[in-house]
C-alpha cells in the first residue's frame, strides 16, 4: 500500500500539472503549482532512500508474461533507486529557474509529461514499456524544439531521433524473438543507445541541438541519459564481450573528442553540447568495463553528470536571458553582480571535470582506475578527457563571468534562481564530501548488474579477457532476472 501511495506521489504530480496547464489559462498560477508539485515528486523520489519497503515495489502485467513484456510492468531495482529522482529534480530546476518569458503553458505541460515519462522509464525493465517511453520522450523533444526557425536543424534532429527509435524497436523485436536473430537485436539496441547518447560517430546532433534549438527541452531530454539505462537494462546482461569492448573504445574516444572540441568552440551553447557528449561517453565507458569499480564509478558519474550538467546548462540559459547569445571569444563580466551564479557555475564545471570535493571526483576516480585495468593503454584517455573538460570549463567561466560588466541591476539573480543553483551546487559538494551512501548504493547496483550476464555472455567475457584484467566478480554468479 505504501508502495502504491509512493508511486502516485511520484507520477501523480507531473500528470496533474500537465492537465492543469491545459485547463488553466494563467501561466503564472500553473507555474506556482508546477513548482509545488515538483517538490512533492522530489520528496517522493527521495523517500526510497529512507524507506526500505519501497524498494520492493513491483507491479506485474495483467497478461501472460513474455520476453517482449518483460518480467514485470514496473519494478524498482537497485540500479533505478536514485535514478527515479533525476526527472523530478530536473523538472523542479526547469520550472523554478527558467525565466517566465521562456516557459509558457504548453512548455509547462511538456516538461511535466517529460518528467512522468522519465520516471516511468526508470521504473521499468520491460522492453515494450521502455521502447514506448523512449519514443514518447523523443516525440516530446521534437515538439519542444518545433518553434525554432532553423528547418535544417529540426530535420536533422528528427532524422537522428527517428533512426534511434527504429533501431530500438527493431532491436527489441529481434532480441525478444525465438530465432537466431538475438545477437543482431542486441547490436541494434546498443546502436540506438549510441545514437541517443551521442557516441561517435552518432554524436553530431547533440551540439547541433544545443546550438540551433532550445536548451531547455534538450537538457530535459538528454541529461537523465535514458540511453544508458536501456543499455544497462536490456543489453548489458546479455552482451558479448566483443560488443562491450567496441562500445567502450568508441566511448573512450568520444569522451576525449567531445572535451577537446568543447575547448575550441566560440559559442557557449555549442561548447555545452560537446561537454555533454564527453560526459555521456564517460558514463558509457564504465558500463562496458569489466570491473565492478569501473561500473560503480560510471553509475556515480551518471548521477553527478546529470546534476552538474543540468546546472551548467541552466546557468547558460539564465545568462542568455539577461544578455542574449553568449560568445566565448570575449569577456562578458558579471561576477560582481552574480557571485553565487559564478561560483555555482564553476562548481558544476569542476564536478564534470572530476575535481576533488565534488561527486564527480568520486565517480571519475573509480572509473579511471577501472578503465585503465580494462584497457591498459586506451584507459588513459579518460584522464585526457578530464583534463580537457577542466580546461573547457575554466575557459567558459572566465569568459562568462570575468571582464567589465558595469553595475546593471537586471543582472542580479532572482531568489528562485539563487535557491536552485545554490541547492544543486550544495548537493554536489555534500555528496562529494560524504559519498558513502551513494557509493554503497551504486556498488550494490553494479554487483547486481555484472553477474546478471547470461552464461553465454559470461563465457565470451571469460575467454576473451585475461585473468589479470577481469574482476572475479564478473564471472561469479548467474542471475535469473535477465529480461530476455
Amino acid at each position: 500500500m505504501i508502495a502504491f501511495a509512493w508511486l502516485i506521489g511520484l507520477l501523480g504530480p507531473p500528470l496533474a500539472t500537465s492537465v492543469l496547464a491545459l485547463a488553466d489559462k494563467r501561466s503564472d498560477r500553473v507555474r506556482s503549482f508546477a513548482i509545488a508539485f515538483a517538490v512533492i515528486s522530489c520528496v517522493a523520489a527521495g523517500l526510497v532512500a529512507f524507506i526500505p519497503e519501497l524498494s520492493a515495489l513491483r507491479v506485474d502485467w495483467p497478461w501472460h508474461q513474455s520476453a517482449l513484456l518483460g518480467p514485470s510492468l514496473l519494478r524498482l531495482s537497485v540500479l533505478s533507486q536514485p535514478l527515479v529522482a533525476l526527472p523530478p529534480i530536473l523538472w523542479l530546476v526547469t520550472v523554478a529557474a527558467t525565466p517566465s518569458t521562456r516557459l509558457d503553458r504548453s512548455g509547462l505541460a511538456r516538461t511535466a509529461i517529460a518528467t512522468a515519462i522519465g520516471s516511468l522509464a526508470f521504473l521499468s525493465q520491460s522492453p515494450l514499456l521502455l521502447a514506448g517511453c523512449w519514443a514518447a520522450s523523443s516525440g516530446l523533444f521534437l515538439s519542444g524544439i518545433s518553434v525554432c526557425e532553423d528547418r535544417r536543424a529540426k530535420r536533422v534532429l528528427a532524422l537522428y531521433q527517428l533512426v534511434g527509435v527504429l533501431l530500438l524497436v527493431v532491436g527489441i523485436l529481434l532480441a525478444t524473438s525465438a530465432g537466431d536473430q538475438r545477437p543482431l537485436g542486441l547490436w541494434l539496441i546498443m546502436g540506438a543507445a549510441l545514437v541517443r547518447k551521442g557516441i561517435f560517430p552518432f554524436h553530431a546532433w547533440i551540439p547541433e541541438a544545443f546550438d540551433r534549438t532550445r536548451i531547455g527541452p534538450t537538457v530535459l531530454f538528454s541529461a537523465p541519459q535514458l540511453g544508458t539505462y536501456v543499455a544497462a537494462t536490456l543489453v548489458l546482461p546479455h552482451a558479448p564481450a566483443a560488443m562491450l569492448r567496441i562500445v567502450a573504445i568508441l566511448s573512450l574516444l568520444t569522451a576525449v573528442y567531445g572535451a577537446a572540441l568543447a575547448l575550441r568552440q566560440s559559442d557557449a551553447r555549442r561548447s555545452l553540447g560537446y561537454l555533454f557528449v564527453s560526459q555521456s561517453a564517460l558514463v558509457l565507458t564504465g558500463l562496458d568495463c569489466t570491473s565492478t569499480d569501473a561500473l560503480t564509478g560510471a553509475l556515480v558519474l551518471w548521477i553527478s553528470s546529470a546534476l552538474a550538467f543540468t546546472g551548467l546548462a541552466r546557468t547558460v540559459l539564465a545568462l542568455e536571458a539577461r544578455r542574449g547569445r553568449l560568445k566565448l571569444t570575449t569577456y562578458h563580466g558579471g561576477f560582481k553582480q552574480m557571485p553565487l551564479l559564478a561560483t555555482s557555475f564553476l562548481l558544476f564545471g569542476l564536478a564534470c571535470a572530476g575535481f576533488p570535493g565534488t561527486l564527480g571526483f568520486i565517480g571519475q576516480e573509480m572509473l579511471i582506475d577501472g578503465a585503465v585495468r580494462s584497457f591498459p593503454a586506451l584507459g588513459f584517455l579518460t584522464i585526457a578527457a578530464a583534463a580537457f573538460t577542466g580546461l573547457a570549463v575554466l575557459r567558459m567561466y572566465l569568459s562568462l563571468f570575468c571582464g567589465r560588466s558595469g553595475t546593471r541591476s537586471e543582472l542580479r539573480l532572482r531568489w528562485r534562481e539563487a535557491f536552485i543553483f545554490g541547492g544543486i551546487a550544495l548537493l554536489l559538494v555534500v555528496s562529494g564530501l560524504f559519498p558513502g551512501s551513494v557509493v554503497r548504493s551504486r556498488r550494490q547496483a553494479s554487483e547486481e548488474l555484472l553477474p546478471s550476464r547470461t552464461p553465454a555472455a559470461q563465457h565470451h567475457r571469460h575467454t576473451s579477457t585475461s585473468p589479470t584484467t577481469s574482476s572475479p566478480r564478473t564471472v561469479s554468479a548467474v542471475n535469473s532476472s535477465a529480461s530476455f
Partner: protein
Amino acid sequence: MHQLIEVTATITVVAPLLLLLVTGLTAPTKLLGEKGVGVITRVALLAALAASLTALFAYLLSDRRLVLLKLGSWFTASEARFSFDLALDALSLGFAALSLLICNIVAAFSFRYLHREPGFFRYFFQMAMFVVGICSVALAGSVELLFVGWELIGLSSALLVGFFQERPAPADNALRVFSIYRLSDAAMLSAAVLLHHWTGSGNLTSLFTTTEQPHLTLAAGQTLAIGSLLIIAVAGKSALWPFSGWLPRAMEGPTPSSAVYYGALSIHAGCFLLLRVQPLLAASGIATALMIFGGVATSVYGALSGRVQTDVKSAISYATLTQVGIIVVEIAFGLQLLPMLHIAGHACFRLLQFLSAPNVLHDLHELENRLGEELHPSSKQRTGQGRPAVYLFALERGFADSLLDRALVAPFRRLISILDAFDRLLVFERPSRRERRS
C-alpha cells in the same frame, strides 16, 4: 610520544580544512565581514602551525621512524579505496611547518594589503584552498591524497592569477597557467593510476623510504614510466623548462599570492615531491638523467631570462627559477638534507623579496637620498660577438611559449578545426563562404 604526533598532525590537516569550509560557505554572502574572516583565518592557521611544530619537535625527540597515520577512508568500493593516510617524518612535518609559517605571514600581510578590495573574501577562500592543498601534499601518505592536494594547489593558483577579473589580461593568463597545470595534473594522475595498478596499493610510504625499497618489485620500465610521469608533473607545477613560459604570466595575481605561490611554496612543492620519491627515481638512470637535464636547463634559462626582465616581480620569479633548477639537480644527485635546507632558506628569502617588491622603488629612492648618490647608474654596455643572440633568447624568455605553441597548440587547433568541420558535415551543414575561405 607517537600519540602526540598523531593528534597534532591531525590538527595540522583538519584546521585548514575547517577554514576552507567556513570561508567557502560564507564568501558568496560576505556573511562574516573582513574582521570575521581575519579572526577565523588567524585562529585556524596559527592552530595548524602550532600543531605542526609540536608534531615536528615530538617526532625529532622520538625514535624517528616513519609513522603512517590512517585517518579513515573517504569512500570504499570493491577494490578502489580512498584513504586519508598521512606519512609523518622529519621531511613531511618540516615542510608542513615551513608552509604553515609562510602562510601565516602572508595571511597577516594580506589583511592589510587587500583591505576593502572587492575580492577580499574570494582571496581568503582561495588561500584556504591552497593551504589545504599544500598540507595534503606535504603530509600525504596515499597517492590519492597527494593528488587531491596537487589539484587544489593548481586550481587555487589559476583562480588567483585571474583575481583581478575586470581586466582581460589576468583572465587570459589564468587560462594559460591552468592549461599547464592540467597537463601536470594529468601526469600526476597517470602516475598514481599506474602505481596503483602495478603495486596493487596507493600507499606512498614505501616509496618514501630506502629501507623497504618497493621499487625493486617494479620492473625497470615501470619505474621509468612512473618516474617520468612524476617528473612531468613536477615540471609543470614548478615551471621547469620547457614549461617555464607561464611563470611571468602568473605575476598578474595579487602580490601576496605571487609571494606564496611563485616565490615560496607552490614552486617548491614539485621539488619537495621529487625529494619524497627520490628512492624511486634513483632506481632509474634515465629518470635521474632527465632530472639533471631539466634542472640545468631551467637554471640556465632562469638566469638568462631574469637578467632582462623589466618588472621586479618577473625578475624575482626568474631568479627563483634558477634556484629551483639547482635544487632539482641536488635531488638528482641523491642529496637529501641540502635540498631541504635549500628549499627552506630559498622559500623564506623569496617570500621577503616578493612581499617587499611593491616598495622596492620607494626603498631605493629613500636609500639614494640618504646616501646622496645614485646606486645603479644607467650605463650602456657594449654588445660583443654573439651576445645579441643570447640577449634575444633571454628577452623572448627562451622562446618557451612559442615552442609549446608550435609543437602542441597549433597542431591541436588544426586537428580540432578539421574535426569541427567533419561534425558539421554530419549534420548536413554547409560551411559559409567566409568559413570556406578561412
